[in-house]
């Protein structure tokens, strides 16, 4: 495990039906990123058509099976069938990632680009040494997605790979055996427990979805906002950080470390935080 690896991430959120197809054009743009940074091999997981969300494939064609990470289940090559399913608009979830050289399992990657209609989310995470600026990554991710998905909200952040930055975007984190056993042993109280901020975010993504209106998960180094978000936080008349327009409907809000706590206070005061 690359304990020191830090990942720059961007997550964009949009309203979606759970089986809306992932556009082929988005996949081509994602593939372009892997080529630009010379990241290979490319692994993928997809949902829809012939693919299941719990399987791992190699974006190559050719004979033979690949065994890796001590898993007795082989990684199959499936480039052609993946392209066909994408073009046929059968896939509602697509994830591409390039493993680290010393990876012990799939969670140890250099870059991951994913889009899912289940969660209405487009995610781009990449090694900090390849893309050090959260704002630059925000712009890059928006360029890839803004004309293909009806984006309403997003944020960029940096965190160690060991903290599962891809999971963080959806409010999930590491789960150990003790967590599972605790839930089972306290089943009756579990549903009434006090949710952590991350759990509240996870719940919001499937239930309230106020982030698609005018609510914020927090104040991140870079934030993608709708006009409603900007109004809710009163960022035009009383600015904090740097607000710039991405297009007619979307804004990028940049915050330095020192500005983030003030911004968080503003959002809380405006009742704009999901917590």
């Amino acid at each position: 495990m690359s304990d020191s690896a830090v990942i720059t991430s961007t997550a964009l959120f949009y309203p979606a039906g759970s089986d809306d197809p992932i556009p082929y054009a988005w996949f081509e743009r994602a593939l372009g990123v892997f080529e630009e940074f010379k990241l290979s091999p490319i692994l993928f997981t997809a949902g829809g058509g012939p693919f299941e969300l719990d399987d791992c494939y190699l974006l190559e064609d050719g004979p033979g099976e690949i065994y890796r990470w001590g898993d007795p289940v082989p990684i199959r090559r499936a480039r052609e069938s993946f392209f066909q399913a994408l073009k046929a608009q059968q896939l509602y979830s697509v994830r591409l990632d390039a493993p680290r050289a010393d990876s012990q399992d799939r969670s140890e990657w250099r870059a991951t680009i994913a889009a899912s209609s289940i969660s209405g989310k487009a995610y781009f995470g990449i090694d900090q040494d390849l893309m050090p600026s959260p704002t630059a990554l925000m712009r890059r991710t928006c360029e890839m997605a803004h004309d293909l998905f009806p984006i309403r909200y997003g944020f960029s952040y940096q965190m160690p790979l060991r903290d599962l930055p891809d999971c963080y975007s959806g409010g999930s984190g590491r789960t150990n055996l003790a967590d599972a056993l605790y839930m089972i042993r306290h089943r009756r109280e579990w549903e009434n427990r006090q949710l952590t901020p991350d759990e509240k975010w996870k719940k919001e993504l499937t239930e309230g979805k106020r982030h698609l209106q005018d609510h914020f998960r927090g104040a991140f180094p870079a934030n993608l906002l709708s006009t409603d978000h900007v109004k809710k936080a009163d960022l035009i008349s009383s600015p904090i950080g740097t607000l710039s327009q991405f297009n007619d409907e979307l804004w990028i809000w940049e915050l330095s470390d020192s500005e983030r706590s003030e911004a968080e206070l503003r959002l809380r005061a405006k009742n704009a935080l999901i917590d």
Partner: protein
Amino acid sequence: MLDIYGIEANRRALLADLKQLIEEALQPFADDLREFLERVRGGAFGPNWRDAWDTFVETQADAGFNIEADSASRLVQLMESWERGHKAQARILTKAGATTSPTSALLSAVQALQTDRAIEPSSSTFVQREIARKPAVTGHGFFNSKLDEAQACLTSIKEALEAVGQKLDGSEVDESVDVDSDVDAVEELIWRYNDAVESARAAWLRENLSGNDNTRLLQMRTPLSLGLPQFVDDGQAERARRQLAQISHRLGVRDERQDRLITGLRVLDWAATAAGLLAGGGIVIHAAKTGGKWAVVKTIAIGAGGMAIEQATESGLRGLGAGEQTIRGVRLAAAIISLIFLRRKRGIEAEAESKAPLYKEGPENPRRPRSEAPTIEGTLDRPRTKYHLFLQQAVAEEMQAMYDYERIATNTSMSKFLGRKFKNDIRPDAIGLTRDGKVDMVEILSPGQTKVELEDKLSTAMNQLPSAMRGEFIAIDPKDAFK
């Protein structure tokens, strides 16, 4: 030479005769008290039952039966608990030595009964007087009357189940339907059915009735044939077991139908299978927040006809003349009621067993002893990493140990587990059905799997269920499992 063994045998015979004579003499009182208690429980006297009780006590005293004050007080307590509709209190009284059932109450009262001083101390006089007052039905006639009584109970049970089925059919999705009084009624009818059959068996043993009569007993339909537990009272179940053993011994044969009845003693465990039936039908059972009354909620608009049914139940219903529509409603109602019986019973047991440890060890929910644990359905997953099987088993066994889970399976599809077809039919490493009808799923990540996508898969699967059945899902990464 004195024949000691002969004297002893004579004494025993005399005592047996005396016991039988006393039982027969008390029979009219027993019948009257039972009838009276049943009328009170059925609400025949309304709020004026105390006046009726006073009259009853006086009438019985005039007839030569004085009820001891302590027994009378316990009976009044029992009737008060019925009046308040507090079944739970009635059960507590049972545990404390009183009873919920008229006959048990009767036995308690009769044990303490003192004969009036106006009655001659001679047992023969006593019997003659009582027989003259109200001739007891004995022998074959009594046996037949008990079979008729049992049959009438079964018919009433079927009608009660139909009523519950209709009530549920007529309810809206997400509407809470109170079934507490229906459950009480069916519980009482099952109790009375078994009471009648117990009396018939006692008559068969006492009167040395024929093998054909025993065959008639065995051919009777039972609550099991309606998809319900055979017994709701452990005492009745135990007495039935002893009677059946005596009958077998006397006939020198063992009839497989008797074995089936004895097997039926464990029907409260059997009722757990009803959980799957209800889960598949989108029915959620819950005890309402206020008053602890049992209610059900129909979470999806599914017809009872879409549900699986045990063959024996269908045949039992057809035997009672039920049509297709009735069968659909009744099987659903029977599953609901069986499950509520189970939960009531397990709830009491769990509470009793866990109270002390709970206070000592903190707020962890009660664990069930291994002997009561449901079987883990399904198989373990195909070999993955060295931790995969261990974690899968650890999670499933933890669910098995907790009362909050009624059914647990490993590597079993949702469709198979819940008895319904699902479009996204996943096969989680562990799946559990909680007592309040929720489905929990746990996945163990393989090295090539991603947590985000696995959780998306679990979320999609969960969202196919009615909202009231959506439980928790967790994906564990073995790499983090022991941190």
